[in-house]
Every structure is written in structure tokens, then in C-alpha cells.
């Protein structure tokens, strides 16, 4: 569809050379942040690890005793004590390492009627036996996260040979627009119905670009690919491969067999039945619907070089349907009286967004919540395989068909979006760190605690940039034939049926003891 322009883009990469390709730049910038955060965490280990291990043992023993007592007699106080004990244990385990940058990066909080509340973290603390509300100003944390993004952006601008002052001025303005987008996302009604920041960032950008026009001084900071690909490298650090084994064979079959089947079937359906005019739009919708919503759309969109309007559209459709499914599915499940494990697995395997899965699971209770979040977590890990697979498939087959040339391995390597290597590399490195026992888990957690926040700002910057480049008329053109929505609805219907069938077979016929264990 965009062969000519993509070919000219490729030629541009060839001319610019390695360091000037934004894919390599994203790996460098993401790598600097990940390794920097890793080094910072490694220099701040717990001073008394033996003491911490003893405390962990004591807390674990206490939890075991509480669980044993709850098996004979289920009461609310014991359940509350178990939950509180689990939280304390998680905190103890995470305390082996702390990141010195952690206090200086923060996400905006939610608010109801006063947007200023977004700059305060609201916590409930127990003081002298009484519950109190505590508000902490997080403006320095927000500024700190944006400052890290600015440093990455400046390094990128220097490596790309861009003039520095205009770039910094443009970034400062983009940072303001990003903060406004995140404030809009934090409104309670918006946030708790899963309308994630990409659509509000697009709205802010499009409000400017489609009315007064994008000011020319903003142009040096409109670097969508750089923000997205750097964010994806950071996201790779959270793709921990050991999570794949969390629910054994039934978990793998529901998340890692049904999901690719749904993705491939939906893509084939889009190409051969609906005859989607754009293969990349087809792929992005198929991936966000079958894997994990917005994050999968971003990763596959970058892997198959989708148009920005296509990514925006796919995310918009996904978020709209997720908001509906998040409310309707629990109602349906309650109505039919579905088993909580089956319900949780079904929610986790079908609702696109991770947050919405948790929200829907919570409506059904703790057993469904745990099953739903765990299945979604396993499915989240698939994002690395899917984006790598899509990138290889695209350069090997889709671009080959368009150019009528069969690329050799060298050409495939040349065309492969290289940021995928950074994404997969970060996943492998942090999976290895995580596998090194409790201290490794704490070290990986202390790093991602910082980089995940920076990633959110980078993705939000990317969507503001997309909004600033998007013409509303151009975007609405994609909706006119209704094929994108039809594709999503058909694919999601297949996803709902296949996931339910596989979950029922796995958790009720092949591994019924697994369902029983999850209910304990």
C-alpha cells in the first residue's frame, strides 16, 4: 500500500548509516536507560540481606499457618490477614535492591473533579491505629520522568545531528501536551473504564493539528518512531519469560496456542474474506485483539511499519470494545453462573487490555481475578514473540510480494526493524536476572519500577506526536467501509469461542486438579 514511500524511507536509512537509523538509536537510548538503571540499583543493595531473608522466612511461615487455618475454617479476618501478609511479603522481597532514581520518577495520579489532584498521590495509612489519608506532591517525580525523556531525546538529537536549542524548546512544549494528556487520562470515570492515554494524547495532538495547525517550532520533537521504539525496548525488560510457566500446560495452551491461532486466522480472514485494503492495518487489529491490546498494537505496528493512522484506529477500536467487554462479560458470567476459574481464564484470554482484565476479574471475586491476571500476564509475554515473528514475516513475505523480489537472508536482516532486537535482548537479559533467585527478582523489579514510568511518558509523547501529524479526514477515511470494525468483531468472536473452549477442556477435563488448586 505504501511501497513507494517505504522504499524511499529504506533508502533514507541506507544513506544515513547505522547510528542515524532510529531503530539503532532506540536500542542505544533504551539500552542506556536500562543499563544505567541496572547499575544504579546494583549500587544500592540492602545492607542487611541476611536479616531480610530471616524476615522473609518468618513472614512465609506466618502465611503458611494462616493458609492452613483458613482451609479448616474460612473467615473474613483470616482472608484479610492473608492478603495483607502477601503484600508485606512482596514488599520484603522487593527490598533487596532499591533504585536511587525511584523517588524522582512518578506517574500522575487519578482525580475526580479537580485536575490539580493528579499531582498528588493519595494513600491510606494507619497511624496510631487510625486510618488516615495522606497526600504527597509528585510534581518533582513527573518533572523527573520528563527530564529523563528529555536527556534521551537530547542524546538522540545530538547523534542525529539535529540543532540542540530548537529541539529542547520543541520537547518542552511536547512535554506540556503530554502532561495534559495524562491528566485527562487520570479522571476517575475515564481511568476506571479503561480509556488509556493513547486516545487522549491523540485527541490533544489532533485538536491542535486540525484547527490551528501544528506549529513549526514543534517539529524537531515530533519523533514518533523514536519515542515508540525506545519505549518498546524499555517494555522488553518487563517481558519475563519464566512467567510463561506460571500455570503449566493449561496456561500455555490457553495463552500461547489459542492466541496465535486467533491472530493468524483473523489476519487470513481479513485478507481473503474482508479483503482489507491495508495488510498492516489488518495485522495491527488482529494483534491488538488477540494478544494484549494497546501494547501489542504498538509493538506489531512498529514491526510491520503500519501507518500512524492505522495504529490510531486499531487502538481506538480496541479501547472502545474493551470498555464494553470489561462491563458486559462479568454480567454475562454472573448470569450463567460460570465457575470462577473458568471465568477468570476466559476474561484473561479475551479482554485486550491488562488493566481491564483485572477490573473485570475484580467484579467476579478474588479467584477469578487471580486466574484472569495470571493468564493475561502469560499472554503479555507473547508480545515479544509476536512482534519478532511479525517483523520477520513482513520483511520476508509481505514486502517481497509488494516488490516481486524474493529477499535473501542479508536483505531480510537489512530490512528487519532493528529495534525488535533491543526489545528481545532486554527481555532475555531481564529474564535471566529475574531467574537468579529472590535477589535477582528484586533487582529486575527495582529497574523496571523506574523504566516503566519513563516508558509511559515516551509512549504518550509518541501519541501526541501522532495526533500532531494526523488529519482527522484522513483518519475517518479508514472507518468508511466498516471493514476495520468488522474484522475486530469477527476476530473477537472467534477469540471468545476458542478461549472458552480451550479453557473448559484444559481446566475441567484434562487438568481439573489445576482449577481446584487455583481455588484453594
Amino acid at each position, binding site marked *: 500500500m*505504501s511501497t513507494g*514511500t517505504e522504499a*524511499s*524511507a529504506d533508502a533514507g536509512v541506507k544513506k544515513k548509516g547505522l547510528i*542515524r*537509523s532510529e531503530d539503532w538509536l532506540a536500542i542505544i537510548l533504551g539500552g542506556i536507560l536500562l543499563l544505567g538503571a541496572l547499575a544504579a540499583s546494583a549500587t544500592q543493595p540492602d545492607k542487611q540481606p541476611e536479616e531480610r531473608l530471616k524476615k522473609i522466612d518468618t513472614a512465609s511461615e506466618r502465611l503458611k499457618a494462616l493458609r492452613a487455618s483458613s482451609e479448616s475454617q474460612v473467615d473474613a479476618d483470616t482472608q484479610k490477614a492473608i492478603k495483607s501478609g*502477601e503484600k508485606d511479603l*512482596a514488599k520484603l522481597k522487593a527490598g533487596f535492591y532499591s533504585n536511587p532514581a525511584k523517588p524522582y520518577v512518578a506517574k500522575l495520579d487519578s482525580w*475526580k*473533579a479537580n485536575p490539580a489532584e493528579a499531582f498528588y498521590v493519595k494513600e491510606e495509612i494507619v497511624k496510631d491505629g487510625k486510618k488516615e489519608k495522606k497526600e504527597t506532591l509528585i510534581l518533582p517525580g513527573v518533572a523527573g520522568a520528563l527530564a529523563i525523556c528529555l536527556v534521551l531525546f537530547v542524546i538522540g538529537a545530538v547523534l542525529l545531528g539535529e540543532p540542540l536549542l530548537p529541539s529542547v524548546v520543541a520537547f518542552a512544549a511536547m512535554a506540556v501536551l503530554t502532561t495534559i494528556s495524562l491528566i*485527562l487520562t487520570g479522571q*476517575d*470515570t475515564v481511568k*476506571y473504564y*479503561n*480509556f*488509556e*492515554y493513547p486516545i487522549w494524547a491523540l*485527541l490533544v495532538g489532533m*485538536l491542535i493539528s*486540525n*484547527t*490551528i*495547525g501544528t506549529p513549526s517550532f514543534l*517539529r*524537531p520533537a*515530533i*519523533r*514518533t*518512531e523514536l519515542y515508540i521504539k525506545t519505549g518498546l525496548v524499555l517494555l522488553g525488560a*518487563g517481558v519475563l519469560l*519464566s512467567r510463561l510457566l*506460571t*500455570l*503449566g500446560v493449561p496456561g500455555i495452551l490457553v495463552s500461547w496456542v489459542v492466541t496465535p491461532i486467533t491472530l493468524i486466522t483473523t489476519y487470513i480472514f481479513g485478507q481473503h474474506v474482508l479483503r482489507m485494503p491495508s495488510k498492516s492495518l489488518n495485522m495491527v487489529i488482529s494483534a491488538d485483539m488477540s494478544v494484549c*491490546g*494497546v*501494547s501489542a498494537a504498538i509493538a506489531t*505496528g*512498529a514491526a510491520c*511499519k503500519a501507518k500512524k*493512522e492505522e495504529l490510531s484506529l486499531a487502538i481506538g477500536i480496541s479501547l472502545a470494545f474493551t470498555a464494553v467487554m470489561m462491563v458486559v462479560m462479568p454480567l454475562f458470567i454472573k448470569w450463567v453462573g460460570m465457575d470462577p476459574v473458568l471465568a477468570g481464564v476466559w476474561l484473561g484470554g479475551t479482554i485486550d*487490555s*491488562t*488493566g481491564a482484565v*483485572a*477490573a473485570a476479574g*475484580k*467484579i467476579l471475586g478474588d479467584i477469578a*481475578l*487471580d486466574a484472569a*491476571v495470571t493468564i493475561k500476564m502469560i499472554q503479555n509475554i507473547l508480545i515479544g514473540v509476536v512482534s519478532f515473528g511479525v517483523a520477520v514475516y513482513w520483511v520476508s513475505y509481505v514486502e517481497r510480494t509488494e516488490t516481486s523480489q524474493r529477499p535473501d537472508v542479508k536483505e531480510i536482516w537489512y530490512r528487519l526493524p532493528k529495534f525488535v532486537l533491543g526489545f528481545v535482548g532486554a527481555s532475555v537479559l531481564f529474564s535471566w536476572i529475574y531467574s537468579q*533467585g529472590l535477589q535477582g527478582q528484586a533487582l529486575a*523489579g527495582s529497574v523496571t519500577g523506574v523504566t516503566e514510568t519513563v516508558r*509511559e511518558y515516551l509512549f504518550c509523547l509518541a501519541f501526541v506526536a501522532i495526533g500532531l*501529524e*494526523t488529519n482527522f479526514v484522513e483518519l475517518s477515511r479508514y472507518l468508511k467501509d466498516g471493514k476495520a470494525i468488522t474484522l475486530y468483531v469477527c476476530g473477537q468472536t472467534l477469540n471468545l469461542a476458542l478461549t472458552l473452549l480451550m479453557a473448559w477442556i484444559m481446566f475441567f477435563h*484434562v487438568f481439573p*486438579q489445576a482449577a481446584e*488448586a487455583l481455588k484453594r
Partner: protein
Amino acid sequence: MSEQAASQIREAPSTLGATGSEFDVPTSLPGGWISFTAGAVCVGTIWLIVLPLIGDVPAVADHIALQKQGNIDPSAMFYTDLAIAPVVAARAERIHAENAECFWGWPASSPSLPTE
């Protein structure tokens, strides 16, 4: 902007695989500032008046309260954005470790996971 520069911008790619800072920037509409002001007022009205009112509808308020009480952020994009994820993961890993044969069908070769 020169005609040549404008032409270059129109011809530049707008894919996520595109490189450099080329982009197709929408141009302003006639009466752009009026449209912008109207849009901004509309956004302000929805966020500051309409959405808080919707948030007070009992069903919506109950939903929000339930999610807040469970420390759940429905707008989390990835599992690492979810505050409850580490606790849920630890719980699942413990159940798996204590009942490996239930999840793999054979106890001897069940893969081990980090546990409490």
C-alpha cells in the same frame, strides 16, 4: 515555507517504519483559532463537569470504588503497570510449586518456579 519544502513534506512517508523527522503535518483550517477554542472549551466542559457527574451515578461510583479498594488500575497497559501483579504472580507461583503435578500432569519433570 518554500514550495519545494512543502512538496517534500507532502511526499514524506508516514509509516511507523519511517525514519528521520519527515512527516505530513496537517495544515490549519480557516478560522482555526475559533475551532481550537471551541474544542478546548468542549474538552474542559466534558472533563470538569460531565465526567464528574457521570462518576456520581451510583453504578459508576460503585465500580470505581470497587477498583480503588482492590488497588486496580484498569488503564494499565501491561502487567508491569498493574500494582497487584507481583502479589498475584507470587500467589500463582506458590500454588504452582505446591501442586506442580496438577499443572503438568507428571510430578517428576515439572519445571520449578521461584517460590516463597
